[in-house]
């Protein structure tokens, strides 16, 4: 049977890769810097999938993101999902040509469902990832935001999940803005809501600080994929170690032969 997935998410924005906390960005450096100082190649050898998101606060240009994907694809031998700023079918084409296997949509899910349908017809629903960012507010309601968390969609988490599940998409990338970058663990209640409201697979995102958090997400009924964007906590062989500890604890993750 299909294994669970451990996913790493790289946040590209305004020319460099970033760490994010509650969607506030902290610049890290270019790909060379990330390779050298966070041993990204080691991270890349220990993940089931790579997500690359353009979270630029200034103008987003699809060619910049495609350029990053193209470089990453030269040394990343796992499925790659890329997105952030996709506004046209041609934008998606550029990312696929650069080496992406899937595209990630966010704002378009709420403002341009015709584009979502067209992308799905062109590339297949399985290659469309719907990214939902939500914030748990003081009144206990989870509200969904678009445009890097900057724009209230007017939808609750439940409504947004129902909405994207009615579109022709392959999976949902579900991020807690409150937990993002805290290293305190996932919003497990939100994951339960997600699994309950969607037919498609959910990728848990936002909050992982260690392997126990990743395991907690994967122990939620119906959740089979967990992502971290936390370069700092999982740098070097951090992901590899997390993988091994999770496997020893019975999480069905795959194993790869030692790289030559």
């Amino acid at each position: 049977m299909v294994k669970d997935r451990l996913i790493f998410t790289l946040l590209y924005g305004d020319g460099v890769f970033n760490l994010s906390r509650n969607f506030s960005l902290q610049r890290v450096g270019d790909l060379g810097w990330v390779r050298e100082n966070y041993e990204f190649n080691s991270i890349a050898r220990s993940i089931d999938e790579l997500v690359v998101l353009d979270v630029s606060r200034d103008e987003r240009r699809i060619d910049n993101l495609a350029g990053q994907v193209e470089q990453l694809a030269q040394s990343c031998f796992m499925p790659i999902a890329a997105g952030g700023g996709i506004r046209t079918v041609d934008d998606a084409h550029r990312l696929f040509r650069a080496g992406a296997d899937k595209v990630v949509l966010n704002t378009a899910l709420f403002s341009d469902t015709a584009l979502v349908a067209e992308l799905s017809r062109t590339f297949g629903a399985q290659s469309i990832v719907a990214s939902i960012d939500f914030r748990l507010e003081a009144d206990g309601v989870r509200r969904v935001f678009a445009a890097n968390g900057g724009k209230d969609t007017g939808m609750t988490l439940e409504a947004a999940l129902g909405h994207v599940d009615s579109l022709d998409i392959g999976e949902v990338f579900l991020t807690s803005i409150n937990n993002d970058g805290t290293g305190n663990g996932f919003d497990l209640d939100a994951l339960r809501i997600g699994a309950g409201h969607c037919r498609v697979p959910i990728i848990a995102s936002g909050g992982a600080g260690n392997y126990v958090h990743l395991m907690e997400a994967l122990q939620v009924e119906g959740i089979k994929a967990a992502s971290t964007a936390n370069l700092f906590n999982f740098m070097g062989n951090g992901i590899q170690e997390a993988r091994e500890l999770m496997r020893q604890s019975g999480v069905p993750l795959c194993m790869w032969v030692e790289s030559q």
Partner: protein
Amino acid sequence: MSVAIVNYGMGNLRSVQNAFAALGERGEIVDDPQAIAASKRVVLPGVGSFARAMENIRRRKLDAAIREAVDAGGALLGICLGMQLLASEGDEDGPSAGLDLVPGRVVRMQPSEGIKIPHIGFNALSSRGGHGGLFDGLEADSDFYFLHSFRFVARDATSVIGTSDYGGEFVCAIRHRNVVGVQFHPEKSQSNGLKLLRNFLDRF
């Protein structure tokens, strides 16, 4: 050693090329029938529909070129749709003839309780004998990345060199002499996939 990666206008050829580059080998993306016919190592990748792929291949006269390369002793590796195209015929988008290099038919996978189609993700390969070294150095139940909605039904059981389980056993690797095919994507299967590609170069 250079590898000819057949370009028939479908699929992500660059990722296959990148994987060979990581092994220190040059993968050349080619659509010239003569260059393919003369190649000692040919890779047939592909994403998309069987019928459309065969139409593209025939229009570009690549079917004869691939056959010529194989008849001259060259090794051929089909990946994903490229593996399915090795069959005698396929059902996708209406019945159509395949390259007929490994006798068999490609049929749609059926969804069932908890089994969604397409089959997508890392899943284990159970290898059988007769793989000619393709799986050398890989552990039993090694995981590979799959993304497909159709499966290969081999006419001759001896051509099956690997199976996988998704709502039941299905064929995920086939071989007929110097022709091999894998349903999964070695170029997306981390070190397991790179090892398999290395074996293809070294053992075939």
